């Protein structure tokens, strides 16, 4: 998700610089609350209520993003071990342990300044059980006020009236009063509508960017590049003018790439010839992000669609946009629709559609040890997709921010076999391929 590139020789376009400035400014705001007096709310990416939080002049701090930042800076490994020394099991989510280990080490932000203690923990319990325990653990450490928004899981693949009403009622009776109480600012629904209007504008351009990968060659990589593209909309910028400006700038850059017949930008410049078009399921590994990406672009493999870029909101599949005319209901629909809050059959349907719409050669699953929300059931997803599309699928394993679970040689071998399998499939040789 939104992070700053990790090495010196990364090629930077204007949109990248714009995003970098936005993130830096946000961290500056977060780390200067003692001077500014601004209040901070900690919350999660999936189901985040940024438009609402902004109504109270509060700043949005996201523990997963901090863990990712520390992962890309190669700092998360030590933090995880610190948390394990404190009694946290080696079996559980490494985002949680990176976060807790970071706290034990003084919670230093990427700008080198200490992160503030949040004034409010806003537990948005969307699509991931671990979130609930994570916030209990944070509350145990911070001792600050906590409010919870439970987003029911769409077990039958649909949003019911009862689910929507429940989310709206919690917003009205628990979340908004808590935000008012902590911030001292009265809720203004018209302010929320304005924020949501801006969200929808940015969402339109985001979807255009993601769908540009239908072109051949694809002008973007919708996974490794995609995690940068979703940064503003998934984090502290949805509902801001900055987000609108960022996506407009990004769109213009991609329009220019399409006009020039160019493929995606990689950390080493233009990718070159597009040989393989993939759909990827699952989050990326962050500790070896660039090495991981290189395994793809070196082989001419471009990811044309990914499910991870839907974890903080699905805007393409069923056309959701934040709706200023029905702000709270629309906020509920946004939360309910986040990718991992959808049941497995719907996830399979989505991936099948992506493979068809983006004319992909197959599906690659990056299965993450830490993340049962994504990972449990992925082997069945793979079988279903192979059966439905006849396209080959492959399965690799890594972790989010624990460097101990990234085995470059194993992953590279697996990917090379997979690309050979796609070649063979194209040549029409052999029987229908099974997973690599």
């Amino acid at each position, binding site marked *: 998700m939104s992070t700053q590139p990790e090495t010196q020789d990364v090629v930077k376009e204007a949109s990248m610089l714009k995003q970098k400035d936005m993130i830096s400014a946000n961290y500056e705001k977060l780390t200067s609350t003692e001077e500014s007096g601004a209040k901070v709310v900690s919350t999660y990416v999936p189901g985040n209520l940024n438009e609402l939080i902004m109504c109270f002049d509060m700043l949005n701090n996201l523990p997963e993003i901090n863990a990712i930042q520390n992962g890309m800076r190669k700092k998360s490994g030590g933090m995880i071990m610190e948390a394990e020394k*404190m*009694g*946290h*099991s080696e*079996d*559980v*989510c490494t985002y*949680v342990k990176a976060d807790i280990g970071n706290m034990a080490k003084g919670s230093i932000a990427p700008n080198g300044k200490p992160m503030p203690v949040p004034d409010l923990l806003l*537990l948005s*319990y969307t699509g*991931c*059980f*671990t979130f*609930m*325990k*994570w916030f*209990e*653990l944070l*509350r*145990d450490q911070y*001792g600050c006020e*906590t409010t*919870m928004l*439970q987003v*029911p*899981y769409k*077990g*039958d693949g649909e949003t*019911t009236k*009862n*689910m929507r*009403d*429940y989310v709206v*009622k*919690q917003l009205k*009776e*628990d979340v908004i009063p808590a935000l008012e109480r902590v911030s001292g600012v009265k809720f203004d629904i018209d302010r929320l509508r304005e924020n949501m209007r801006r969200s929808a504008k940015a969402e339109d351009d985001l979807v255009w960017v993601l769908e540009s990968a239908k072109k051949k060659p694809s002008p973007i990589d919708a996974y490794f590049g995609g995690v940068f593209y979703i940064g503003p909309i998934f984090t502290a910028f949805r509902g801001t003018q900055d987000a609108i400006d960022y996506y407009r700038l990004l769109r213009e850059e991609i329009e220019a790439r399409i006009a020039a017949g160019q493929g995606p930008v990689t950390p080493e410049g233009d990718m070159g010839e597009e040989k393989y078009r993939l759909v990827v399921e699952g989050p990326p590994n962050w500790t070896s992000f660039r090495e991981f990406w290189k395994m793809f672009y070196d082989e001419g493999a471009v990811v044309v669609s990914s499910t991870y870029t839907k974890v903080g909101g699905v805007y393409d599949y069923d056309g959701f946009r934040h709706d200023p005319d029905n702000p709270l209901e629309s906020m509920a629909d946004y939360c309910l629709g986040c990718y*991992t809050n959808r*049941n*497995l*059959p*719907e*996830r*399979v349907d989505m991936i099948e559609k992506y493979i068809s719409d983006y004319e992909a050669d197959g599906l690659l699953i990056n*299965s993450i*040890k830490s993340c*049962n*929300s994504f*990972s*449990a*059931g*992925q*082997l*069945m997803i793979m079988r*279903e997709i192979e059966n439905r599309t006849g396209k080959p699928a492959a399965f690799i*394993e890594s972790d989010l921010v624990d460097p101990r679970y990234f085995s470059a040689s194993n992953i590279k071998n697996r990917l090379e076999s997979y690309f050979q399998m796609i070649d063979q499939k194209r040549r029409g040789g052999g029987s229908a391929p099974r997973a690599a």
Partner: protein
Amino acid sequence: MKTTSEIISTCQELYDDLNFTAVRKWKEADESRKVIGYMPVYVPRELIHAGGMLALGILGGGDSLEVIHGDAYYQSYICRIPRSTLELALTKRLDFVDGMLFPSICDVIRNLSGMWKLMQPDVYVRYFDVPQNFKDDVGGNYYAEELQELRKGLEGVCGRKITDEDIRRSTAIYNENRKLVEEIYSFRAQSPWQAPSYEVYLLMRAGMVLPVEEHSQLMQDYLVAAKSEDRPMRDNCRIVVQGSFCEQPPLNLVKSIEMAGCYIVDDDYMLVTRWLMEDVPLDGDPIANLASSFLHQSVETAAKYEPDGTRKGSYLLETVRKRAAEGVIFAAPSFCDPALLDRPMLVHVLNDKNIPNISFKYAENSGQMQPIREQAGTFADSIKLWSEA
């Protein structure tokens, strides 16, 4: 009068039978009968019973099932219960089950509900969500509506209306069952040598497959028998087992803890049998009553959110006090997110009160008990030698 040995022998047979012969026989006795399977940790069994159906607790495959097909669906870092449960289904051991409920406990069981939908499109499958907001007009209203949706779904399986009166009648029967469960647990806590934990465990496991009325009778028989038998008292310490609410430990593990010198005086095995701590009222709206009991009278466990941080762990502390326990053993299945994420917070609470505790992990097919015996034995010794009491 039956002896404890005879009763437990019956329970052991039920426990060992992974073909669920007793349930099959129950179903075959009347062609209109239906069976609804459920996984841990809680479903309102009253609604299933009210539809004339049998609620079948499915707790994985234990240590005697060889998992072959199920392993092909899960990575090595995912717990064992979903893979052995899939194995049961893929080997047709659950082919008589007409519906499956997957309670809200963790992401693995949640996603298994979707896998079941894909694998068994003709079976009624429901992910059963519960509120984590415990206000009557917020979480309560949501839950009451979820219960109504479940009721409708179950009506579709049993082929008839489930009336309010049906639910009241079933609630009364389950109230009686919960009372007996509590009586057994209290009896064991008072005189644990009279009710060894593996016996109590098997007795509760029988409740996963038997009709509730038969299970209640079995517990009554056991109480009479256990109270009349004289068994030797050991110089064991008294401990609470915590963290085993989903994937179950092998029976040998339960026995090993006790053999190592620890009487288990409370546990969280099969919480569905005592999730609701008080009788559910029988007058008024039966759905509202079930919802209210869930909100205000249910146990504290890792699958639930604790809105008040100062109360985190209070249920465990109260259990330790009520059962006069001297320590806590955290025994969690490997890769169990709820239990393992909760554990550090509970350990803090216990440490603050100087309550001794140890932790280990298991899988339902763990075979080596020696390390467990050594750890539990050392724990028992340390309590006996150095505790303030």
